[in-house]
């Protein structure tokens, strides 16, 4: 704080001594900062956020000035990065990974005038909003395609960290694969990283060696796609980004996170002074989740089934978590026709019945 006071005082003195009027102040662009967990070229998660940032620049031009910091590790270093962005005069900061949650809360408390937006988290404050996409809607469609297409009846899933966002995806994929193919099993491997191509490739190789002919990933690089391509008869789905470079095989579909409309809306609200701390959770319906092109490797009737489901989810006619559903231990979770509320989903920390693996706590 002392240093900031000192800096602003010297700046003011400088302006005074030069006799400059404070006119420039009125035209000053809104400064917007981003931190990404991976490199912008990961072609997955961080890449999509970067697309959103570029959309802001394209939309608002000179009225905004954006900066980003990439490959910021989750943990104490995130706090440093956020503080640096706040000190640099950014008045709206997007923190784009779950693990930044506590860092965001700490830094937000120190800079009450700076607005923060935290992706996929659940802690909010006066100046902290959260936003998230219903990735599980895309997983339901992937599960349907996977259940129909698997020959070994083993579906592999590369998890990053055992957090609700990932657990939702595993459950949604499994429920829908089982629905169309009762013999399906789900194998989960936790990579404990969002981005490490070599390790993601190893995880995919381990799943393929276990006999999985579908590999889903909840990590950010395209390495598992490359490993599946090498194996030949394994199908995958683009994660976060379309990953269309791997179409039509192994990538047969995808879940695309489209943050651009949300980012433009929020920056617009900052500009006209109507920004408030909200919790946004968009899905297929609002366009925040896209399902990409389902390729020719998928039989036509499976494709039609998948598209019909996407349509029903988008219109709000079908919820991927519709009862009857039991928890892994067999205790009831949702009664027939019941759907969970968002709070329950945001804290999801158990597998549904039928998954044999144990969820790390």
């Amino acid at each position, binding site marked *: 704080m002392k240093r900031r006071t000192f800096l602003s005082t010297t700046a003011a003195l400088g302006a005074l001594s030069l006799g400059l009027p404070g006119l420039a102040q009125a035209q000053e662009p809104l400064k917007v900062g981003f931190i990404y967990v991976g490199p912008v070229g*990961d072609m997955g998660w961080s890449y999509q956020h970067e697309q959103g940032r570029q959309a802001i620049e394209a939309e608002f031009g000179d009225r905004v000035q954006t900066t980003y910091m990439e490959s910021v590790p989750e943990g104490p270093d995130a706090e440093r990065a956020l503080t640096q962005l706040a000190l640099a005069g950014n008045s709206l900061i997007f923190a784009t990974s779950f693990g930044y949650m506590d860092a965001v809360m700490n830094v937000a408390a120190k800079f009450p005038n700076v607005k923060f937006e935290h992706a996929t988290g659940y802690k909010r404050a006066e100046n902290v909003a959260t936003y998230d996409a219903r990735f599980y809607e895309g997983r339901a469609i992937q599960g349907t395609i996977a259940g129909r297409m698997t020959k070994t009846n083993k579906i592999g899933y590369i998890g990053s960290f055992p957090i609700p966002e990932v657990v939702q995806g595993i459950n949604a994929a499994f429920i829908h694969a089982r629905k169309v193919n009762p013999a399906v099993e789900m194998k989960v491997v936790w990579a404990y990283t969002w981005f490490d*191509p070599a390790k993601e490739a190893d995880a995919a190789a*381990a799943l393929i060696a276990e006999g999985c002919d579908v590999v889903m990933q909840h990590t950010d690089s395209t*390495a598992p796609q490359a490993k599946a391509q090498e194996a030949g008869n394994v199908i995958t789905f683009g994660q976060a980004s379309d990953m269309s470079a791997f179409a039509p095989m192994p990538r047969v579909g995808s879940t695309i996170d489209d943050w651009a409309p949300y980012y433009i809306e929020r920056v617009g609200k900052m500009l006209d002074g109507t920004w408030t701390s909200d919790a946004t959770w968009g899905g297929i319906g609002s366009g925040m989740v896209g399902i990409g092109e389902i390729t020719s490797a998928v039989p036509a009737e499976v494709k039609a089934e998948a598209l019909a489901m996407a349509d029903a989810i988008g219109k709000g006619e079908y919820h991927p978590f519709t009862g009857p559903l039991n928890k892994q231990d067999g205790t009831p979770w949702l009664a027939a026709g019941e759907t969970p509320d968002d709070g329950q989903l945001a804290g999801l920390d158990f597998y549904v019945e039928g998954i044999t693996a144990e969820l790390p706590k």
Partner: protein
Amino acid sequence: MTLGGIDLIALTATLMVSSTPVLLAALGELVVEKSGVLNLGVEGMMIMGAIGGFAAAVMTGSPAVGFAAGALAGMGMALLFGVITQILLANQVATGLALTLFGLGLSALFGKGFEGIRPPQTARIDFGGLADLPVLGPILFSHDWVVYFSLFAVGAVGLFLSRSRAGLILRAVGENHDAAHALGYRVVAVRLAALAFGGAMAGLGGAYLSLVRVPQWTEGMTAGAGWIALAIVVFAGWRAGGVLLGAYLFGGVTALQLRLQAAEYAIPVQLLSMAPYLITIIVLVAISALHARGRQAAPAALGRSFHASR
């Protein structure tokens, strides 16, 4: 041979491939550190090797050209480090860290447009009937030439350091550069040569990562492999055999823990993902302790700048 649902032969074959990038980089760094230079830029040299090798292989269609280009890219980075630390006498730790950051950034710049491309396949060496031998076939006779080269390099580096005159000079420079200088050895030239070798090996390791192991180019794809290589050199007590053991242990336990997860073993996942680090450190430290008998393992002049006037 299957043990508890895990195919040990396939696992061994996999671990040899997945350990090769770290093994190559660590061997290079071993020679560099033995000459008394601490180059923390392994990560930066590796990733430059990864993009250099990938780009060259994609453009020429030849993996061999790719590996050569990867080694050259790593060597170029190392020589940059050499000029800054050996001739301009800058601090080695700071320069090494800067080299890593520089490499990560520069590789991202060069790598634009190479994402999502499949590199030409590196062929396995054909051993004819040998590859069909039970157990030994898949483990020993089913790899590409880089894996064999890395194993050859372990022996060559070990012998070079301990049995050759040039290796003795290199170690002398690393232990006491003033004495080596007084004997008439050209300290800076020896160190630059060691750095060039280290850079080429790191670059080759990086190229192996992007051309064979993953295989694709992604920004920041080394994701800490260079730091693992650095740590392995230290925990291996600056011995080539230890480096091989460390790299294979780390790669092996990493591959094994993912297999154990996929096979749904009832071992806590947190423990499994810690295991590669824990087991590698424990084993290497234990071996070092048995070996050292109070002997200082680190080269005495490690990280110190040399200037002939003193």
